[in-house]
């Protein structure tokens, strides 16, 4: 009955739908979500001004960041144009492509500081792990979206396998930060698909129990050191504790109002390490105080809220899972970065999205928002 009625509705009122939503249709035609775009543009602007200060007014860095932003925005708009079902179909191919490259990284990759993360194409180097940041939500959303929800046990298993393979490959490089983000994007999709709470609680217990062998056999010394440093940063003031002590000092000394733009002594006098990459929020906190932090977090909140609304309004499971996964992974980015810089999470090397200086990560992040926009502006379905 309902199905029939639905069809009738669509058939009977095609014109009126279009005229009724005339204002909105422009955005649908160009495949842009105006609220999300506005949020992103403001965040980009704020990010650039913080970076300008954090980089010591480096024209070079700003130019570089602007160029990457341009590429990223173009990438976002391009991806936003893709039909959702094309995205759904291409997910697994992108995933496979990413896996192949990840294996190549382990075989012939290049890197620094004991990590092997890049593939060199001669003129350019890039991190294949970035591809998985897109491929993972696409692939898992497609896998779960085409099946009945909540997922059955074997689909949960399949899904976990999809997550585990690239996560392990990335973890092996090692790149803990990206591994966490990629894992998160897959698991979030699984969670949104209605994974039973029993499994969730059960696996959380399992993680606690399994952490001991992880610690003993799997983790690298530098990763263990990071965790230990988090637990007691004062122990090694000049060594591994330095970063976190300096960032807390920067944040704390900023107070409510901050020291003023480009007046932060911690960041301007180079006491704050990685001030233009992972620790950039400490610069904001020092120079603009708690007010600045609240503003930035609100901006993220707006973007995330908009992403969740897009997910809520999506027209099919794939769209919902994809949009939800991308949005919440973006939040994980924010939370892990801000948490680590303020000293409540281990330092795992996750940049502050859209603010930290970054090349490829910027492009993949914006590509993620391209996916969101594609979902948001999917034409109203005429069901077959």
């Amino acid at each position, binding site marked *: 009955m309902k199905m029939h009625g639905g069809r009738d509705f669509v058939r009977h009122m095609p014109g009126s739908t279009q005229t009724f939503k005339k204002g909105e249709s422009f955005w649908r035609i160009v495949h842009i979500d105006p609220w999300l775009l506005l949020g992103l543009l403001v965040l980009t602007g704020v990010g650039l001004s913080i970076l300008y200060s954090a980089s010591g007014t480096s024209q070079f860095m700003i130019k570089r960041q602007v160029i990457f932003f341009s590429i990223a925005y173009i990438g976002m708009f391009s991806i936003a144009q893709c039909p959702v079902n094309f995205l759904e179909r291409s997910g697994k191919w992108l995933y496979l492509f990413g896996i192949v490259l990840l294996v190549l990284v382990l075989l012939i990759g290049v890197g620094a500081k004991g990590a092997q993360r890049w593939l060199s194409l001669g003129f350019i180097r890039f991190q294949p792990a970035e591809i998985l940041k897109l491929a993972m939500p696409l692939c898992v959303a497609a896998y779960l979206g085409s099946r009945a929800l909540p997922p059955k046990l074997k689909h949960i298993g399949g899904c976990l396998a999809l997550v585990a393979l690239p996560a392990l490959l990335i973890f092996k490089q090692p790149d803990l930060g990206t591994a966490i983000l990629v894992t998160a994007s897959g698991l979030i999709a699984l*969670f949104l698909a209605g994974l039973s709470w029993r499994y969730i609680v059960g696996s959380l217990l399992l993680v606690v129990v399994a952490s001991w062998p992880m610690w003993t056999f799997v983790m690298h010394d530098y990763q263990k050191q990071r965790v230990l440093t988090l637990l007691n940063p004062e122990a090694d003031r000049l060594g591994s504790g330095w970063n976190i002590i300096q960032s807390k*000092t920067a944040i*704390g*000394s900023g107070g*409510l109002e901050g020291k003023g733009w480009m007046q932060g002594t911690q960041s301007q*006098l*180079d006491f704050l390490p990685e001030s233009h990459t992972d620790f950039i929020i400490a610069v904001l906190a020092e120079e603009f105080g*708690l007010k600045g932090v609240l503003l930035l977090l609100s901006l993220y909140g707006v973007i995330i809220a908009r992403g969740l609304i897009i997910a809520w309004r999506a027209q099919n499971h794939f769209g919902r899972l994809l949009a939800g996964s991308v949005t919440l992974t973006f939040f994980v980015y924010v939370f892990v970065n801000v*948490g680590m810089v303020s*000293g409540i999470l281990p330092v795992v090397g996750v940049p502050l999205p859209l603010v930290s200086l970054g090349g490829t990560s910027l492009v993949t992040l914006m590509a993620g928002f391209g996916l969101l926009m594609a979902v948001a502006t999917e034409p109203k379905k005429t069901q077959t």
Partner: protein
Amino acid sequence: MPALGKKHQHSTIANEGHQRRIIQWRLLVAFLGVVILLSILVARFYLLQIKQHQNFVTLSDRNRIQMQPVAPTRGLIYDRNGILLADNRPSYRLSVIPERVKNLDALFVELNKIIDVSASDIDRFKKLKNRSRAPYQPTPLKLDLSPEEIAKISVNEYRLPGVEVEAELVRYYPYGELLAHTIGYVGRINERELKAFDEETKKDYSATFSIGKIGLEKHYERSLLGAVGSRFLETNAHGRALRELEREAPEPGQDLHLHLDLHLQKAAFKALTGWRGAVVAIDVKTGGVLAMASSPSFDPNLFVTGISYTDYNALNSSKDLPLYNRTLQAQYPPGSTLKPILGLGGLETGLISPQTRINDPGYYQLAEGERLYRDWKKWGHGKSVDLHQAITESCDTFFYELAVRLGIDNMHPIGAHFGLGKHTGIDVPNERSGLWPSRQWKKRHRRQPWYPGDSLNVSIGQGDVLTTPLQLAVMTATFASQGQRFEPHLVKQLGDQKIEKKGVDIVSASAANWAYVNKAMESVVHSRRGTGKGINKGLSYRVAGKTGTAQVVGIAQDTDYDRDKISQRNWDHALFIAFAPADAPEIALAVVIENGEHGSSAAAPVARSVFDSWFEIEAARKAKMNPSQKVSANRSLKNNVMASEVDL
């Protein structure tokens, strides 16, 4: 609406809607999670930025603000007329901030391509680096850069992080060797000196690299040093100072104003040219040292920024011992210069009188058939020699007789009152005490009784007797002032504080006896038979003096002193003590010329030069003071007139 998790109908559409609601429900849960986690972050920032704000402000300030000690300016040294004797001149040194250099050895290699950095420079740098110091404090590597070196470093500075050219003030002695022994010099603080520092002293020297090594520079080190200051610098994480936030100025060291007169010192030093010897001139009324010269000397400026090994070796191994301060480190037998005070002592005890006369056959015998104590004049000074003649002609035989009458127990206190055998207490370190023997001394040190013959040797200033030129000058000044013995001192004024030494001893003797011996000394220079008559030509003032000759090697009983048979270094030392004007003494001095043979021919002319210079200076000063008084009076009068005109 069915609640989540309920089993449902199998209609696809219903199923579709149900599944949509599963996802939407989870989206709501996730949104709630986002809100909670964001709240945690906000709470965290609230804790750090509001609750613990002050703690972190302190931490942040401690990060960026560095306290650096600032060296005080060393006090200057002036002569009695305000002529600068020890100055501070700017010097440029190459310093390295070790914290900013990753590989020091690589840096040294790199630097060596630009300028010459010696192994000893690097050695010293490493020692300095390991001393306790403020973090990021520059450590000197190479001192006293030439303008060319400064330019070369400046050009390359951009590729030498952590390398700086620093300006500092270093000591400069414009008169070089003229005052080397007296003023001394400063040099770099060495390990041994550093070890002796207590914590407080270490702080005082935290920005100072030099310390007084000898002379006045050493004695007045703490006064000259001043008090260390500090400045608070904002530095970045790499230790580069960006700006000064606050400064506590160092307190400059106190200046020294000396009794010493540069012109007189020049005259004394010039008169010693070519000799090894010493001159000490003392202001009779105050005990202030007017001139103090030791020859040969050296350039103290060599030591200031570190003397090179070859330079030091040359100085240290020279047979003429230029580093040796002969005025107070060298001990010579005083020879006949002791005769006036012993004569005075004889008169005071009453064991001899102006009427006492002896026969001098050219020798003295304690008893028939015993050893002959010879007079310097082979055939003697005549059959009737009194004290006046004995001093004038330096008759040894008379003093042998006197020694027998006095005995050592009477002789010893006489010399002791005039300061023999004791440190004079001058404000220059490393003074030696000389030796003024006594019965007790011989018993203790030689484990032998005192023999009468020992007294005979002492009476002519030989035997065990040793004196420094400074002691002889003090003795002479004491005599000139008729008994006022002062602690000799160079510094008249320390900072704003005048230094006046009280007399340490008063030798009391009857006015008649002082006058008698004084006359005898005058005739040494002014009488036809005086041993010092060689210097009396054209004298416009009266000099009282006494020559002396000190044997360097013992002469066997029956042989004569034959200069051609002994090497020059064993020739007798020549001595002369004198004061002038004889009737109202102003200046007293002692001259020792090593291997100068005769006090009359070698030492007395030196004294004459110094006296001449003294009276020229005095005359010039008097001449200058009178007209200048008039001029200043005129000027003040003029000023008054002008002032009153303005008032009108």
